[in-house]
C-alpha cells in the first residue's frame, strides 16, 4: 500500500470568536491547508463536527462547507463521533485515500460553541452520553469526569493536588502556541487555589469549550512531486474503537479499554513499539481523561498515570512529552475539530516547525481523539518521512 501523507495543514486560533461564524471558521482553515499543500484540489471533503445541528441549527455541513470553499461538485459528508469527530474524520479521509478511490481528501474539523450560552451548551454536550439513562438524570460531561476522578482518587489514594501537573504542563506548552486559547504559564500553586466545579474536579481540570477549525489535506506520496515544499508526514497507523456509550455500563470504568485497543492497533499497523513514540497528543478534556489515557495506552501502570504529570515525565523534555501545543486544556477544546488540531500539531512537530515547543528529533507521534469517556477512541500514528 502506498503511503498516505499529510500534504497541507491549516488552523484558526482557538477562542471565543464572536465575530466569526461556523462557515467562516471552516473556510479560514481550509484555505490555509490548501495553500500549504501547494494548491492541491480536493476530490472529497470530510467534515468533522459534533454540535452544529444542536448549537447552530445547522446540519449538512458537507454540502455547506464544499459550497463555501468553492468546491461544489466534489463528494462531501459530515462525520460525527462526539468529541472524537475530529479523529473520526481524519480516519475517513485516510481510508478514502488509502483505498485509491480518492487521490486528494480535505479533512476539516470545525466547532462553534459560542452561539449558545452555558446551560444550553452543557445540555448539548450531554447528548453525547446516554440520553435515556444518563442525561435524563441531569448529569453533565463535567460531572461524569468528576465521578471518574473521585473514584480514581479513592482507589489509588491520590493527594488533593495530584492532578495539578496536567494543567501546569498544558499551560506551559500553550505559551508557545500562537493558535492556543491560553498562552500563559500558570504558577505551581494555582491549582490548589482554583475554584471547585464538581468535587474533586476544579476549573484547572477542565478544558475550555471554544470555537475553532483545523484542516489537513491528505494524498498519496507518489502523487506529489519529488521537490515538494514540506517534509512529508505519513499516517502510519489508524484505528478506531467503540466502548459502551454509558460510563456505568463498563465492567471497569477506571480503564479506557477503547483507548488501549485503538492505540494498540495503530501502533501495530505502524510496525513500531510504544517506546519509539516521541510524543503523545492525548484528549485531555478533563485531567482524569489524560491520566487514564496514559495508563490505557501503556505509558504508565494503572493508578500511576497522574504521577507522570506530577514528576515532569509529560513535559517537553520528559519521557513522553504530551499536549505539546497545550492540549485541550490550554489550546482549548474546539469539540469535533479537536482531533484535526491534534493532527495539525503533530504534523508541525514532525516537520520540525514547532519552534519553542519542538521535540528534538521527533519521528513518531501518537494522537488520540476521544468521544465521551472513551466511548469512542480513535488513534493515529504520524511518522516523519526522510
Amino acid at each position, binding site marked *: 500500500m502506498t503511503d498516505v501523507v499529510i500534504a497541507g495543514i491549516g488552523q484558526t486560533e482557538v477562542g471565543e470568536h464572536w465575530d466569526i461564524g461556523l462557515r467562516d471558521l471552516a473556510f479560514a482553515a481550509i484555505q490555509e491547508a490548501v495553500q500549504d499543500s501547494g494548491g492541491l484540489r480536493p476530490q472529497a471533503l470530510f467534515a468533522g463536527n459534533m454540535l452544529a445541528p444542536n448549537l447552530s441549527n445547522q446540519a449538512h455541513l458537507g454540502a455547506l462547507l464544499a459550497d463555501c470553499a468553492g468546491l461544489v461538485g466534489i463528494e462531501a459528508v459530515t462525520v460525527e463521533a462526539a468529541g472524537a469527530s475530529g479523529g473520526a474524520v481524519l480516519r475517513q479521509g485516510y481510508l478514502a485515500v488509502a483505498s485509491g478511490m480518492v487521490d486528494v481528501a480535505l479533512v476539516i474539523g470545525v466547532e462553534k460553541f459560542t452561539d449558545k450560552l452555558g446551560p*444550553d451548551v452543557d445540555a448539548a454536550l450531554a447528548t453525547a452520553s446516554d440520553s435515556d439513562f*444518563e442525561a*435524563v*438524570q441531569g448529569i453533565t460531561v463535567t460531572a461524569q469526569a468528576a465521578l471518574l476522578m*473521585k473514584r480514581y482518587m479513592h482507589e489509588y489514594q491520590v493527594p488533593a493536588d495530584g492532578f495539578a501537573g496536567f494543567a501546569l504542563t498544558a499551560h506551559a506548552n500553550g505559551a508557545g502556541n500562537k493558535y492556543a486559547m491560553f498562552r500563559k504559564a500558570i504558577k505551581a500553586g494555582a491549582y490548589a487555589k482554583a475554584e471547585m466545579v464538581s468535587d474533586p474536579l476544579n476549573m484547572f481540570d477542565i478544558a475550555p469549550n471554544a470555537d475553532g477549525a483545523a484542516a489537513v489535506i491528505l494524498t498519496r506520496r507518489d502523487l506529489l512531486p519529488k521537490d515538494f515544499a514540506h517534509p512529508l508526514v505519513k499516517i502510519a497507523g489508524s484505528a478506531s474503537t467503540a466502548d459502551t456509550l454509558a460510563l456505568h455500563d463498563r465492567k471497569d470504568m477506571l480503564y479506557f479499554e477503547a483507548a488501549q485497543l485503538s492505540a494498540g492497533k495503530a501502533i501495530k499497523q505502524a510496525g513500531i513499539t510504544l517506546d519509539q513514540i516521541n510524543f503523545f497528543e492525548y484528549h485531555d478534556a478533563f485531567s482524569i481523561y489524560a491520566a487514564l489515557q496514559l495508563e490505557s495506552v501503556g505509558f504508565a501502570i494503572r493508578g500511576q498515570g497522574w504521577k507522570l504529570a506530577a514528576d515532569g515525565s509529560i513535559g517537553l523534555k520528559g519521557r513522553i512529552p504530551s499536549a505539546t501545543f497545550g492540549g485541550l486544556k490550554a489550546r482549548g477544546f474546539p469539540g469535533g475539530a479537536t482531533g484535526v488540531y491534534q493532527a495539525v500539531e503533530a504534523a508541525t512537530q514532525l516537520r520540525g516547525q514547532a519552534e519553542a515547543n519542538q521535540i528534538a528529533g521527533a519521528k513518531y507521534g501518537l494522537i488520540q481523539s476521544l468521544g465521551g469517556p472513551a466511548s469512542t477512541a480513535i488513534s493515529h500514528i504520524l511518522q516523519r518521512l526522510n
Partner: protein
Amino acid sequence: MEIPRHWRLKRQRYSLVGEVCPHCDYKIFPPRDVCPNCGDEAKELYTFNGKGQVYSYTTIYEAPTGFDANAPYTVAIVKLEEGPMVTAQLTDLGEQPVEIGMPVEMVTRKMRNDGDERGLIVYGYKFRKRT
C-alpha cells in the same frame, strides 16, 4: 414534548425493570435484549430490588437546561446489589455527608419539567440513603 419517549421507558424509570440472561444469569440494566457478558440473546425480564451502594458521587452546581430548578444536586454512580451500575441523582440527603460505599435505595421522584407550556413532568428513579 417527548411523551412517547418517556412513556415507553416507564417500567425502567418507575420500577427498575431490566433483564436476566438465561444463558449466564448476568443481570442487565437497562434492558437491551443482548447479554453484555456472554453476547447471547437475553429477553427475560428481571425486576431489581432497588438496593445498592454509592460507587462514586459528585455535586452539580451549574445545571444543564431543564435541570436549573434542582441545582445544586448530587449525582452518583450506584452499584446495584445484583451487579449493574446506574447513574442517578441522590435525594433526601439533608445535611448528611455522602460517602463512597454508602448504602442507598431507589425511590421515585420528579426528574425534570419537559420545558414547554403544557408542562410534562418526568418522573423516575433517584436513590436515598438506606438506614
